[in-house]
């Protein structure tokens, strides 16, 4: 790729990843790579072997006797409060009396090396009196085991609309969980400081939460704890709340031993202990008029929250908020319930419930298209949001027609992908091919941007200009690979008018920017970008009079100064001075060269009681056309081509955004086709490593992958006209379900039940028809 830097500003230009060279040389450091001080200890976690039960006895004597073991901690060794949790403090860090899932931490062992710690952990005795456990959504519904009363969103008379519909469909869909499978497992290193303070290096998306929860566990103020995040080897939501326990355990070790303590999970421990994407059950009933427009929709959603609250309620909220996807629905009734089960506590994962809500709706759309005999792409386009009154989301928020890109994207993509032509070709191919059938799927998406818990929509930055003109940039966001630092560097360099080489993005740390929100909800560059821009602009404006003085310009001329590319110029007089010289003189003139920036998204808010409000600042749009080929003898399939057109506003850094679009799409395809989280009946996990849990490999991605960013699409009110990109492309993957259904229709099984993920077995069951349901599926087997 040729980078074409604009000498004046890096904004909107292609750029390489900020850490690219560090990645390919192995020099980029992650928590587990940190050099350890002498005497550092390694932790291993003792976990529950039971899905539910009362702890009757714990014995650490044998573990403590192992040579090299320093300490074994139980719940009673926690000096502060043994309760953590991102919203509700309902999780014991170490279980004291009751265990709620297989894998729940009960004790933590610290030893001079990891192998010794793990060996000793196996010697800690935990006796449990088993209690009945809930191992499925259905079991939880039966037991009425919910986290909270239902969340309802309603508009109009859905029942009447369904009764009067030209055609109505009803169905049920189940969609499985998904392990984050970040390549870097959970890791935290706690280092002792003076006076009972400590620094925690954590692989977390939420350093402030780590800081606060460590303080809670230790019973100290937040000021006693600094959390630093060098970088993460992937997060995807899995380190939003669930990095915290490991950091707390490491801190507990430091508290008692005074030595550096590391808690790093091997893959098995990571997959046993941590929560995943929520599995969902959705029941839908949709009514359509003769043209295929939805007249009414009723949906009930049930999520498997696992054993504790974690982020399950906001995940469910976002699922409900995306039951409309891109479509105007005049009359509707949505209900969502989060089921409390005895599974790991399911948590944030790219899309945060949005994908699960959308997949239910999209199956209803596919169902409707079949019932009406309308092409599924056409049916979708006919239902797009549009001009008033078709511009109101189910919760009442306006979907502004002025910024609605659904139609533009649809028209462009139908054309560029030759949807109609290829669909005809595929029909012809399928007619002549007995065992191999192809299918085409179209999927538009609309995704709401903002934390739906509105107070979280705030961010801070701290920018330091040194007297030599170089810059340190601190902001509250964390880098997990998504390129946030690259974007923030770009914004900072643009606002200050320096080259990117002059700016260094610092390790995210809670002693630089306080009270941060998690880097989540696709919000990282929107929120932090505004804060970085504000801090950088503040410094620029402080330096402006200094530059004017150096160039002997009056105040009016000072306003004409341009800060660009490391030089401050006054175009009318063609005078210029290097930025570095301005910085030096600012110092000489005793001008403050550090500034904070802050941003709070305006105008967002939502009322759960009424199911209405403005949860989102704006919406992101995109669409895909993807083609699959299905083997009818084995159920194997592959994707042969995908065309994506995605709206990222005016991209801050288009090369980074393209990476997010491609990576998100492929991760979504993995969720829907090959990634299968499995448990045994006793609640113990089956899939605890990549040998049993299959994320996409290189061959699963079509060679013919055409990704474009929607041009000329600035988003008003967002930093430099850009748009959030982290999560929305994930949901494009739902197009693969439609494509598979098209292929299934070639086998005469258009209406077959298709279990998700659509593994070869799931697809073969659909092809072979209902008789295949008689035998047990893999969910119950092993």
């Amino acid at each position: 790729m040729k980078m074409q830097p604009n000498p004046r500003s890096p904004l909107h230009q292609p750029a390489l990843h900020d850490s690219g060279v560090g990645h390919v040389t192995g020099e980029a450091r992650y928590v587990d790579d940190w050099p350890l001080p002498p005497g550092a200890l390694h932790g291993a976690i003792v976990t529950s072997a039971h899905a539910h039960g009362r702890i009757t006895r714990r014995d650490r004597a044998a573990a403590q006797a192992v040579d090299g073991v320093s300490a074994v901690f139980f719940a009673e060794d926690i000096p502060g409060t043994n309760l953590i949790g991102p919203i509700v403090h309902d999780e014991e860090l170490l279980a004291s009396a009751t265990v709620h899932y297989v894998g729940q931490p009960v004790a933590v062992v610290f030893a001079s090396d990891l192998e010794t710690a793990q060996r000793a952990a196996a010697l800690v005795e935990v006796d449990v009196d088993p209690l009945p456990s809930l191992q499925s959504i259905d079991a939880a519904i039966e037991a009425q085991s919910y986290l909270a009363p239902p969340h309802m969103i309603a508009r109009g008379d859905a029942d009447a609309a369904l009764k009067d519909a030209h055609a109505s469909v009803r169905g049920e869909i189940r969609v499985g969980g998904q392990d984050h499978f970040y390549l870097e497992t959970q890791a935290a290193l706690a280092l002792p400081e003076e006076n009972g303070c400590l620094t925690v290096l954590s692989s977390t998306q939420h350093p402030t939460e780590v800081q606060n929860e460590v303080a809670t566990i230790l019973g100290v103020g937040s000021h006693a704890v600094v959390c630093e995040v060098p970088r993460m080897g992937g997060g995807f939501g899995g380190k939003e709340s669930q990095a915290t326990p490991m950091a707390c355990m490491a801190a507990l070790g430091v508290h008692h031993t005074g030595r550096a303590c590391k808690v790093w999970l091997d893959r098995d421990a990571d997959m046993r202990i941590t929560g995943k994407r929520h599995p969902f059950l959705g029941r839908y009933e949709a009514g359509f008029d003769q043209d295929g427009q939805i007249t009414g929709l009723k949906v009930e959603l049930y999520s498997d929250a696992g054993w504790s609250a974690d982020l399950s309620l906001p995940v469910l909220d976002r699922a409900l908020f995306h039951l409309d996807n891109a479509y105007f629905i005049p009359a509707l009734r949505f209900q969502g319930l989060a089921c409390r089960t005895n599974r790991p506590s399911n948590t944030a994962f790219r899309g945060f419930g949005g994908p699960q809500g959308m997949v239910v709706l999209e199956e209803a759309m596919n169902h409707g298209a079949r019932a009406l005999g309308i092409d599924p792409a056409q049916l979708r386009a006919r239902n797009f949001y549009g001009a008033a009154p078709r511009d109101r989301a189910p919760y009442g928020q306006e979907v502004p027609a002025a910024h609605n890109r659904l139609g533009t994207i649809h028209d462009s993509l139908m054309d560029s992908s030759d949807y109609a032509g290829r669909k005809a070709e595929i029909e012809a191919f399928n007619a002549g091919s007995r065992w191999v059938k192809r299918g085409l799927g179209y999927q538009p998406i609309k995704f709401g941007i903002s934390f739906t818990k509105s107070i979280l929509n705030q961010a801070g930055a701290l920018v330091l200009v040194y007297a030599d003109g170089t810059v340190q940039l601190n902001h509250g966001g964390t880098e997990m690979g998504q390129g946030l630092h690259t974007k923030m560097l770009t914004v900072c360099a643009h606002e200050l008018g320096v080259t990117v080489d002059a700016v260094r993005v610092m390790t995210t740390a809670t002693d630089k920017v306080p009270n941060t929100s998690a880097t989540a909800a696709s919000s990282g560059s929107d929120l932090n970008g505004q804060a970085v821009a504000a801090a950088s602009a503040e410094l620029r404006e402080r330096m402006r009079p200094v530059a004017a003085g150096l160039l002997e310009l009056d105040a009016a001329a000072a306003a004409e100064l341009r800060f660009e590319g490391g030089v401050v110029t006054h175009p009318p007089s063609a005078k210029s001075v290097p930025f570095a010289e301005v910085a030096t003189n600012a110092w000489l003139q005793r001008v403050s060269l550090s500034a904070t920036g802050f941003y709070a998204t305006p105008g967002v808010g939502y009322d759960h009681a009424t199911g209405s409000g403005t949860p989102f600042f704006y919406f992101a749009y995109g669409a895909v056309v993807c083609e699959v080929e299905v083997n009818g003898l084995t159920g194997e399939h592959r994707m042969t081509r995908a065309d994506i057109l995605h709206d990222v506003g005016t991209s801050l850094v288009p090369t980074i955004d393209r990476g997010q679009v491609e990576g998100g799409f492929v991760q979504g395809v993995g969720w829907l086709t090959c990634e299968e989280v499995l448990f045994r009946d006793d609640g113990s996990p089956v899939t605890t490593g990549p040998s049993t849990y299959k994320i996409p490999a290189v061959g699963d991605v079509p060679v013919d992958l055409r990704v474009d960013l929607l041009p000329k699409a600035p988003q008003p009110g967002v930093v430099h006209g850009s748009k959030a990109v982290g999560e929305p492309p994930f949901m494009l993957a739902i197009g693969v379900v439609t494509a598979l259904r098209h292929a299934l229709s070639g086998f005469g099984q258009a209406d077959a039940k298709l279990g998700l993920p659509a593994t070869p077995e799931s697809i073969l069951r659909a092809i072979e028809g209902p008789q295949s349901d008689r035998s047990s599926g893999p969910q119950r087997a092993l």
Partner: protein
Amino acid sequence: MDCVTFHVNGRETTLRDVSPTTTLLQYLRGPMRLPGTKEGCAEGDCGACTVVVLDAQAPGGPRWRAVNSCLLLVPLLHGKQIFTVEGLREKPGDEGLHPVQRALVDALGSQCGYCTPGVVMSMVEACHRPDLDAEWKLDDQMCGNLCRCTGYRPIREATREVAGSRPPDRLSAALAQKPEPQPALDYGTDSARGPQRFWIPTSWAALFEVMEAHPGHRFIQGATDLGLDVTKHGTHFDALISLQGLDALRTLEVDGTRWSVGAGVKLADLEDASDEALPPLSRMLRFFGSRQIKNSATVGGNVCNASPIGDLAPVFLALGATFIAAAATGERSIAADDFFTGYRTTALAAGELLARVEFDIPQASARFASYKVSKRREMDISAVAAALRVEVDDNDIITDARFVYGGMAATPARAHSAEAAAVGSPFAEATFEACAAAVASDFTPMSDHRGSAWYRSTVAANLMRGFYLDVSGTPMPRLSDRPSGTVLGGTPA
């Protein structure tokens, strides 16, 4: 007692008190202080730990091989050279980047960067391979490196750019040197968990001497399975004998139609050798495992492991191969049908090891194909593996049938009633429909996370139908570049 000695990034390292069951990854990240190489899974399934090792004894001359350092035990590296991601850069600064590193940075082939060191090292092997001339070969080269961020498009593009480029790097210099023979090793340590010994004998006499003196020994080859016992189950091995010092085991001889495949032949080399000559074998190896696994794992390891699936085993059984066992007292032949005696047990006696596998390339009368069906096409264990072969006479009558399945029983096994349904019948669709029906009565497969009993039985039957279509045109069809599945199912290749 010897020390273990090998070269890392051009520097010699010597191990004295390091347990022989220490993995190379543990040694690199720990005592060597080279944390660039990452642990993503410690089971050889993600590739983040990939390094390259110089295989001086490779057929056709020395070559660099990408391997999973998380499974390799340190004594296996004795006398060898390896490079890690830290050793590629020629000089500091961006200008000093290796062409592979440059290509990956420029393509934005890293996002979080945690898989990247492994990706880089697989690409390093790619740049020294002259044979990556097809899209599927690029995927095969890179399929052992899971990336959760990028969606692979930029990694694929960067790999395509560097494949076969043979840059004049530090690794190419080593390729030009005269290959060193594998030095013998007798290594041991003592720890809280007890003494451990590790041998690399370099002669049959030395091998049999160690075997006799330490009857509780285990053989180790590529460590792709035994390594899991160490990393996943914490198994304490007190006596391990590596067979890598016996050159005879790495010999692959072709004499007319007769093949003799040494037990130490690496799967990657067998795949190369069989690509044109014996497509049913290369088809099975195509999706057998990642490049890293195929670079380490051996024929003998796969066969003697006696897995119920054992992807090579069905092919060898369908070939009617002969397994040659060696002992101090001499050799004996074991027919393939008699080799697997039960779940993970073989006909090898104490004091014996598998020396080689012998078979004849099928004649023109044969119709022969193999299948590997798994949840994910690449780098996954089969739900069902099959090698199906019939002999057809001039009147299109089937005169012999060998239908061998893996994943359907406690051992790789023949579908006898399906074979009976085929023999004497015409080579026609109806016959294979009858075979498909018969397969159901041959097996009672189990359900697990790879597939339910229903799925296994249904696929086993369907493979009969696919086989008929596949071999109707070509007696031993090859897989197309990007097949939608293991079965071609009558689609144009």
